[in-house]
């Protein structure tokens, strides 16, 4: 009887919701609670020794783009902040591009190994995760600093006389982030390439496509979900990176993450820090929306 069936279905749905309620409540609270606190703090007034004073103010949000002149109180565009935003976006995009350029051949290599050795290669890719991020970043520092391995070797072989200045530049940050986030690109790419039917390569060559055309017209569109996933997994944490720019970029080459930390620490401007955090969240969301829409264009089932 249909009515009976419906009643049963409704009952089982109710039970389902009831059973998941504790988890849903916890998740909702844990996800939205801190976010709400940050949002509220961004509209308050900074206290003298950090923390906030419960008095409404838009200075936090205004401080993202403008600085107030100490003498006449006029607003000026904060060039330093814009530089930091631009550097963060630029380095994150470059990190995504580099990890893709290195990760794609790597993932392809692993996916085309015999099934037996594939597990071993994947295992090797994950080994860096076993070490603390800070330790890995300091190790990169040891490799690229003026008296580090690369410079010592190059000077010893006589190729250069002065050490290459890599450490505490944007390049150093880029090297560090590309190294740290590479596995996050390789793993989703591997998953996509692993499902790719290699017969399609032959079909492409057979139908007059060159190697380049097979890559562009057959492989890339089909593994696109993996590329999207990998890019998101690399781009999002890159944008908020804190440890890598701190250790490899020195104090000067800050990214948004360091700038936010500064407001909560030495800057003693929690509302500005909170507003910056919200800005970062907005940038990430907008970037993701653009990216996902661009990636799905022309492929209704992707």
């Amino acid at each position, binding site marked *: 009887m249909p009515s009976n069936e419906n009643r049963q279905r409704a009952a089982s749905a109710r039970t389902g919701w009831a059973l998941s309620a504790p988890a849903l409540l916890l998740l909702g609270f844990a996800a939205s609670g801190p976010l709400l606190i940050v949002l509220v703090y961004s509209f308050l007034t900074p206290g003298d020794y950090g923390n906030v004073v419960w008095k409404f103010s838009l200075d936090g949000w205004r401080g993202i783009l403008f600085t107030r002149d100490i003498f006449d109180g006029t607003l000026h565009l904060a060039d330093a902040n814009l530089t930091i935003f631009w550097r963060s976006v630029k380095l994150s995009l470059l990190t995504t591009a580099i990890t893709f350029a290195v990760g794609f051949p790597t993932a392809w290599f692993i996916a085309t190994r015999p099934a037996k050795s594939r597990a071993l290669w994947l295992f090797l890719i994950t080994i860096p995760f076993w070490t603390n991020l800070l330790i890995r970043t300091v190790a990169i520092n040891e490799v690229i600093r003026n008296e580090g391995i690369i410079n010592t070797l190059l000077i010893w072989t006589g190729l250069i006389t002065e050490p290459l200045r890599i450490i505490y530049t944007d390049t150093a940050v880029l090297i560090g982030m590309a190294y740290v986030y590479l596995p996050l690109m390789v793993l989703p790419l591997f998953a996509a390439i692993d499902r790719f039917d290699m017969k399609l390569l*032959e079909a492409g060559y057979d139908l007059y496509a060159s190697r380049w055309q097979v890559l562009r017209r057959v492989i890339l569109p089909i593994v696109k979900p993996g590329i999207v996933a990998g890019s998101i997994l690399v781009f999002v944490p890159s944008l908020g990176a804190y440890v890598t720019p701190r250790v490899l970029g020195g104090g000067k080459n800050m990214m948004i993450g360091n700038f936010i930390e500064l407001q909560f620490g030495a800057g003693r401007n929690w509302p500005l820090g909170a507003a910056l955090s919200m800005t970062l969240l907005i940038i990430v969301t907008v970037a993701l929306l653009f990216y996902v829409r661009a990636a799905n264009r022309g492929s209704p089932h992707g």
Partner: protein
Amino acid sequence: MSKDVAVEVRNAVKAFGQGDSAVRALDDVSVDIRKGEFFTLLGPSGCGKTTLLRLIAGFETPSSGQILLDGKDITRDPPNRRPVNTVFQSYALFPHLTVAQNIGFGLEMQGRPKAEIAAVTANMLALVQLGPMAQRKTSQLSGGQQQRVALARALAPRPKVLLLDEPLSALDLKLRKEMQIELKRLQLETGITFIFVTHDQEEALTMSDRIGVMSAGRIRQIGTPRDIYTRPVNRFVASFIGESNFLSGAVETGGVRLSCGDLVEAAGTEGRSGKVTLAVRPEQVRLTRAGEPGALPATITDWVYFGTDTHCHLALSDGTEVVARLQSPATGDAGLEKGKAVALRFAPGAAQVLGD
């Protein structure tokens, strides 16, 4: 070489692996495939027929030997430089493209103008009766429809030769029969040379102009379906295509003296002497009354009813087993009884002396 040859394979050898463990998938294969013919490579799995096809497509290069297309050496040309297209066993359709985009892919890669691509694609869709499906994704099609898309995609660039790698093996029986007719129609309509690989003897016999029978990396016999069926050159061909009775005997003037002591007429005795094997198709064996002059005395050991035919198992006087395929009568059991003494005769020209 003559002008009407499309593909010429000269002494092709393909070895996989190195040194002692090397396996010869193709062992000195030579074959001429004529323009506009439906040529079938037939053989059991692992006989090298797919390897030969992949050599012609360009997916593999021979260890030695040559492949010529229209008299031009293409042995080292990559697949995208060969005017040859393949229909894959698994179809290998592009999942990210629509049916129409799949069909137009080859033309697009050749850099043809958009208008031409659209026109050819429309023609191909009509040819394989998939017009309404043009904008569907290939994953939304049935197996038979995917098969048609694969065919249209491979035919669209008008290749000189179309290679088909067991394209019907994934279809169910009814669809397979339909596609056999469809394939033959497409081949006649387009006039393109088809090289078809299969392990299904019935498919080979019904569709081909000529068949190359392969086993263990060699071509054992090339001929029309009738040649191959009625005049098999050796025991492998005789048993792989259809069923055969094998009788041993010795060549004498006037025929072959069978081991049971009787003399029978046989084709292919010229230039042969001593012990030989005769092959006779079961449907060419006729039963007569015992004692009929010139017929071989035999005893019925068993019989099995198959509907249209009845298979009658007989033993000759020395115990050699012979199967006769008899048309089942409309009523009754045609007087077949186990243990009954009868005589049998081979239809004129039915007994064929086999090579080694």
